[in-house]
């Protein structure tokens, strides 16, 4: 009888072990929908699961516009993701709402973070804690259609704003009725143009978009007005572009109907499929005095505020992997975003690369806007341009109105 009991106990013990081993820990990863990012993450997950057979990762995605709400609502219902992606500009909201937990320093020591990653990673620090790490960072550059420029007699891409306008004039084509067939440049405030205006043009005209503590809007100045005028003149005076042409700037460029467009590294994956013409990348135009600027941003990955136990361990491992140099390489190839680690980014190969080179150079003099509500602030810029283009408002009035609206957004945020 006794032997039977021991035997039974052993079996029970073994079967529990077996059951536990068979049950993998499942964690959830959330990001917003963007084809190349989803594909890249799928690959990363596959690699990670192969190396860690006891962990399964499920990826869930949402449209960008709803993403924040989903995370917040899910967290409220106790069903938040274990590892999630967030725009660096959302960090304040997320930390205040306890959606993230500080990265455990055993696996993510601060000194290593600060030495390995580009300095803009410090935007993920609040107090003494880091709340996330980026896989990739992005900057802006000028994409150009080699064929259209060549046909217009332009051998090298424009380096200054003046050359930019001249190139645009040379490549713009209209039909007999005056309709735009090929645009010299795309004009799409809803795309990256609002970043171009905010962090680059305003600075190139001698101003700054925000105060140093990011609490006041300072583009309501002569510089801001001149910057806006430059932008809207592209459509109304030089007539080298039209807001809304082909719906979206990147669509026009992809269709070969725009000679130039300003966009970010994340567009590289989409443009790779272009096979009807050759395109190139160059740094954003400098102004006449040689002043250059760029806008850098990133999405970081963090660990959910309520995650604990074995899910926390699994999440830490996953986060470590997706912030590893190997993951960054995969991301670079698939999405086209620059690695967030300096060593992975600033390789000789990358710097010499005709595509990545200009973006990397841009990172060196880039600024990062501390958004409080990116969608709303982007909308103020869209409306600002539309008021001038569609309603004929003067640049002075429009900038003033936009500055007031944006200041209200910044002030309205609860800390």
């Amino acid at each position: 009888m006794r032997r039977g009991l021991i035997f039974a106990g052993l079996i029970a013990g073994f079967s529990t072990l077996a059951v536990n081993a068979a049950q993998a820990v499942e964690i959830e990863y959330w990001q917003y929908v963007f084809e190349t990012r989803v594909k890249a993450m799928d690959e990363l997950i596959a690699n990670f699961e192969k190396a860690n057979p006891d962990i399964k990762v499920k990826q869930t995605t949402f449209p960008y516009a709803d993403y924040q709400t989903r995370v917040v609502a899910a967290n409220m219902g106790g069903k938040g993701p274990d590892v999630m992606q967030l725009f660096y500009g959302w960090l304040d909201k997320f930390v205040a709402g306890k959606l993230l937990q500080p990265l455990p320093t055993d696996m993510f020591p601060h000194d290593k973070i600060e030495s390995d990653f580009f300095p803009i990673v410090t935007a993920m620090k609040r107090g003494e804690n880091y709340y996330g790490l980026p896989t990739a960072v992005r900057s802006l550059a000028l994409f150009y259609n080699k064929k259209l420029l060549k046909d217009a007699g332009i051998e090298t891409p424009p380096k200054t704003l003046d050359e930019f306008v001249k190139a645009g004039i040379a490549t713009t084509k209209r039909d007999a009725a005056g309709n735009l067939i090929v645009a010299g440049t795309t004009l799409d405030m809803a795309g990256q143009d609002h970043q171009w205006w905010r962090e680059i043009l305003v600075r190139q005209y001698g101003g700054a978009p925000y105060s140093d503590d990011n609490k006041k809007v300072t583009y309501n100045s002569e510089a801001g007005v001149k910057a806006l005028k430059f932008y809207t003149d592209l459509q109304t005076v030089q007539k080298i572009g039209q807001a809304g042409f082909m719906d979206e700037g990147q669509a026009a460029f992809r269709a070969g109907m725009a000679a130039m467009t300003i966009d970010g590294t994340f567009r590289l994956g989409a443009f790779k499929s272009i096979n009807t013409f050759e395109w190139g990348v160059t740094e954003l135009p400098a102004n006449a005095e040689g002043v250059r600027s760029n806008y850098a941003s990133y999405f970081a990955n963090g660990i959910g505020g309520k995650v604990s136990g074995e899910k926390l361990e699994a999440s830490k491992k996953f986060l470590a992997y997706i912030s590893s140099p190997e993951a960054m390489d995969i991301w670079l190839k698939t999405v086209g975003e620059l690695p967030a680690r300096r060593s992975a980014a600033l390789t000789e190969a990358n710097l010499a690369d005709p595509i990545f080179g200009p973006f990397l150079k841009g990172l060196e003099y880039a600024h990062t806007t501390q958004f409080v509500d990116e969608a709303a602030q982007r909308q103020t810029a869209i409306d600002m341009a539309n008021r001038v283009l569609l309603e004929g408002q003067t640049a002075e009035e429009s900038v003033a109105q936009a500055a007031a609206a944006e200041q209200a957004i910044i002030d309205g945020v609860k800390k």
Partner: protein
Amino acid sequence: MASTPTQTEGAAPRRPTGPVWDRLSMKTKKLIWVWSFLALPILFYSVIRFYPTLQAFWLSLTDWDLMQPPVFIGLGNYKRLFADPQFWKVFRNTFTYLIIGTPISLVLAFVISYYLDRVKIMHAFIRALYFLPFLTTAAAMAWVWRWFYQPAPIGVINDLLGLMGLPQQPFIRSVTQALPSIMVTSIWAGLGFQIIIFMAGLRAIPSTYYEAARIDGLGEWAILRKITLPLLKPTTVFLVVFSSIGFLRIFDQVYNMTTNDPGGPLGSTKPLVLMIFQTAFSSYEMGYAAAQTVVLFSILLVVSLLQLRVLRDK
């Protein structure tokens, strides 16, 4: 000892029996049936319709961003709403959809149904042509119309205008033309339904009226004014209320036709429902959004009651 009732031949075998059941009166038995039929539905309506309504009202009095617990702020949301110029723009847009859309739609529908009623050759075919748009998915057709409205060389309408030598129109890229452009899409979709309903109403008018009018020598126009239209009033009232509610709640077309600048350009097409959607699911200000829904509810209520009152009295 259960007593089984005598089974009439051919009756279904599943009649409840048993000592408890048989001692109940007919009336009570019926009552039990009634309430067991109604139990689940009553639960459903309470949980799915009534409770959420109360919750929406309560939410509208709070400030809640889903991350911290809701904070009671009384009428704060409403004060903020009525002071917000964007709200008044949205309010104007919503009423523009209503005030211009409903009459155009109904007049068009009536004229078409009036003549279609008399058509004998290919009646079913022509009727199908008008009705097909009603069966389409608003979201899908919004994209078709969006393509139609593109500037040349992509957009069909502008291409046609170009062929005819007429100037290009910006349509959904213009602050003045965008709203009407989207409204056209909505009218187009709803016309078929209104035509069919009008035709049903026309059919319901007894032919004796027409015959009597003919004998009296009344011309067609007079018959229309004195007989047809008055007798169509219930149908007209129904359609006025129905389509008003539809226009006040417009969303699918606007959302899909302005994806890169929702409700644009410059908010000229944004109806109240889109504002609610953005407030709740992009800015996640649940309390503020709930207040907007209460306002929508009130508008619908007032407009419907007003219409019923005014149209019934006439």
